[in-house]
């Protein structure tokens, strides 16, 4: 079996010498044959050219395959020249530089480079590089370009589209189509979906969003950049927009609404379900970068004299509508926060024990105006999945979850990648 490691860009290996068993040069790597297979087509042979002589080398007899050495387990005198069959799919000839279009046929960009990687032990075509970095690599300027741009404080990002988002390969394609349509979209993870949505043009975006069910749309919308979110909401009918916002956790809905013009946001809030609207309204009043702005108003709270058995039953009923169920907050008769129980401890407790017997006190809390860095510090120091936000009377208003904290700690890493260019 051939040895290959990590990810390789096609432009890094095309035209590299290919050596035989004794280290003699067979010729140069001209192209790579792949076999049609979903979702990632596997490499099946190498096309090696020495002058006008062409060898087609089956992948099984390749020994080393990386950006420094390509060698085969055969002697030069033992291989015979061959021709590429017309049904073969060649990576460089058939895929590189091809146009990528979206489902409606609008042109997006061209394939600047292709990435090969390990899929279940087989070297396969994993992604198309559509970014500036891929272009510079093809032109032979990758490292120089990177240095130059770093002088301006700009980091050259990889911009890849996973091959599974592109249509199955065929020989002699004239263009590649993004497969963001129908059922495939529904099966996608919302974060992946968001990635695709950032790639397609405005018009198709709205169409694509219209085709999603409210729940998927709500999840995908949250993953997008604020400007894109606002554009999409703007283009959508108000009924659909308010339905989607209702479906989102209140803090995320508030984020989206916060980026819309005031009048439009208020109009959408009016159309939302009353309870949801109140939650969102409250969140909108907090500063974006404080605990109040980050928090969600959906959390689980239970009275201190409830039994574990009853709590587990109530939890089952309430859980579908609540984002974070890992902590149960215990409140006294005056609704003041008195303790907390983790989901694990609840399950491990005996059924007839009371909440106040197993809860932990005192609770680490945050005031609504706590800065986001303080929020992050608290959550990270105690390894919390969420932290409660309480006012001066210990009345609980919401929780800040760890993913909200990650979102502001790593906004560039997770979102820049999705930016169109």
């Amino acid at each position, binding site marked *: 079996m051939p040895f290959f490691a990590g990810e390789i860009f096609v432009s890094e290996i095309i035209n590299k010498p290919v050596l035989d068993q004794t280290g003699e040069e067979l010729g140069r790597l001209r192209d790579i044959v792949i076999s049609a297979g979903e979702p990632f087509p596997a490499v099946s042979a190498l096309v090696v050219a020495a002058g006008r002589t062409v060898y087609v080398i089956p992948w099984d007899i390749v020994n080393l395959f990386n950006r420094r050495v390509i060698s085969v387990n055969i002697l030069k005198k033992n291989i015979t020249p061959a021709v590429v069959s017309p049904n073969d799919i060649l990576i460089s000839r058939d895929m*590189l*530089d*091809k*146009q*990528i279009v979206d489902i409606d046929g*609008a*042109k*997006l*960009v*061209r*394939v*600047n480079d292709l990435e090969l990687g390990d899929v279940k032990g087989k070297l396969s075509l994993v992604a198309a590089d559509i970014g500036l970095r891929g*272009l510079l690599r*093809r*032109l032979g300027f990758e490292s120089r370009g990177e240095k130059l741009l770093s002088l301006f404080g700009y980091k050259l990002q990889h911009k890849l589209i996973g091959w599974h988002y592109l249509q199955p390969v065929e020989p*002699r394609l*004239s263009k590649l189509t993004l497969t963001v349509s129908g059922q495939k979209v529904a099966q996608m993870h919302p974060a992946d979906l968001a990635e695709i949505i950032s790639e397609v*043009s*405005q*018009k198709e975006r709205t169409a694509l969003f219209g085709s999603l069910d409210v729940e998927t749309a709500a999840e995908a919308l949250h993953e997008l950049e604020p400007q894109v979110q606002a554009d999409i909401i703007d283009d959508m009918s108000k009924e659909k927009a308010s339905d989607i916002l209702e479906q989102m956790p209140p803090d995320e809905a508030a984020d989206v609404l916060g980026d819309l013009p005031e009048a439009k946001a208020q109009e959408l809030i009016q159309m939302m379900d009353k309870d949801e609207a109140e939650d969102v309204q409250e969140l909108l009043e907090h500063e974006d970068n404080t605990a109040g702005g980050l928090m969600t108003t959906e959390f689980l709270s239970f009275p201190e004299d409830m039994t574990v058995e009853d709590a587990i039953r109530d939890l089952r009923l309430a859980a579908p509508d609540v984002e974070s169920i890992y902590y149960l907050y215990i409140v006294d008769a005056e609704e003041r926060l008195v303790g907390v129980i983790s989901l694990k401890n609840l399950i491990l407790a005996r059924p007839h024990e009371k909440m106040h017997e197993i809860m932990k006190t005192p609770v680490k809390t945050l005031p609504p105006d706590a800065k986001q860095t303080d929020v992050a510090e608290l959550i990270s120091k105690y390894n919390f999945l969420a932290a409660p936000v309480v006012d001066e009377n210990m009345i609980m208003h919401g929780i800040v979850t760890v993913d909200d904290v990650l979102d502001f700690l790593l906004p560039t890493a997770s979102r820049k990648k999705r930016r169109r260019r």
Partner: protein
Amino acid sequence: MTRWRKILILLSVIGPGIITANVDNDAGGIATYSMAGAHFGYTLLWALIPITIALIVVQEMSARMGAVTGKGLAELIRENYGVKITFWLMLFLFVTDLGNTAAEFAGWAASNEMFGVNKYVSVPLGALIVWLLVVKGSYRVVEKIFLVICLVYLVYIPAAIMAKPDWSDVALQTFKPSFHFNTIYIVMLIGVIGTTIAPWMQFYIQSSIVEKGIKKEEYWASRIDVIFGCFMTDFIAFFIIVACGATLFKAGIRVDSAEAAAKSLAPLAGGHASVLFAIGLANASLFSASILPLATAYYICEGMGWEAGISKTFKEAPQFMWLYTILIAIGALIVLIPNAPLISIMWISQVINGMMLPPVLILMLFLINKEELMAQYRNSRTFNWIAWATVGIMIAMTATFVVTLFI
């Protein structure tokens, strides 16, 4: 197919060929023909016949590739010859077309000054008009406006008639090649022929045929469009040379620019001829100031795979619209900045233009002979001979023209 149906198809297809060919008579073209007439009378007229043939041969191939493949020239080059060659070609062509756009705005400014309009008024206004046209218009509408603009070129016909040329001498010189072993004459001849074919034309005609959606079944009509356009263009060039030859040459006035020719016509052929010349120059300059950036935006977007088209909006094709906007803005600014080195910019863009022509034409010939692209629409054996010979001669003439720029 009935005759009426054929005429209907012809009328719907016509446009790209006529428009592209007419832009060949841009500010620089009119200057060259005016100078040719003023310096050498009718003795360069014969050159228009081979120029027309060369123009038809090359333009027809681009139009054919557009109709058959449905792709622009830059698209085909990128898909068949890779990103490296495409990138450098685009980069150099961008520079030369930017320089040429500035030259068109300079022509527009000069002709407006003849009507007493200051360039700080005319240039921004002209830039705004061509910008709005493409950004707000759809392909169908913009093409119709362009075709009307092409009709304005006909003003050179009455201008030539007012110059009262000796028509029998004109006819004789047109069909009887003459040659003068005189350095200036040869340089002029090379200039006239060497600037006939520019790389942007090949890209523009193919892209506009693609955007118009002309199919290979309708291609016969496009061929008529191309041939008619090339004849019309050189017909106009003919009248420019005749007008200048009958007046300036006889009077011994040696002009070195289109606006100087227009001014000098007034005492010789009357104020009307002078005004017509100025209108022709203004029209041609502004027309080309729109088409050149348009061609550039087309080929760069095709090469990169971005959405492109006059009918698209800023939202649908942002790169296309921005490229067009930036080219027009910079082109206009170069003319407006006091002491901008316009002459050097034009010189550099002419040199790069000449250097880029051979690769573009040769790649075109390779592409049009590819079976997987063109199938039965490839060049025939005979046509290939004509095409290679034409391309060879054009490359040689252009190369010589570039060399004369250094003398």
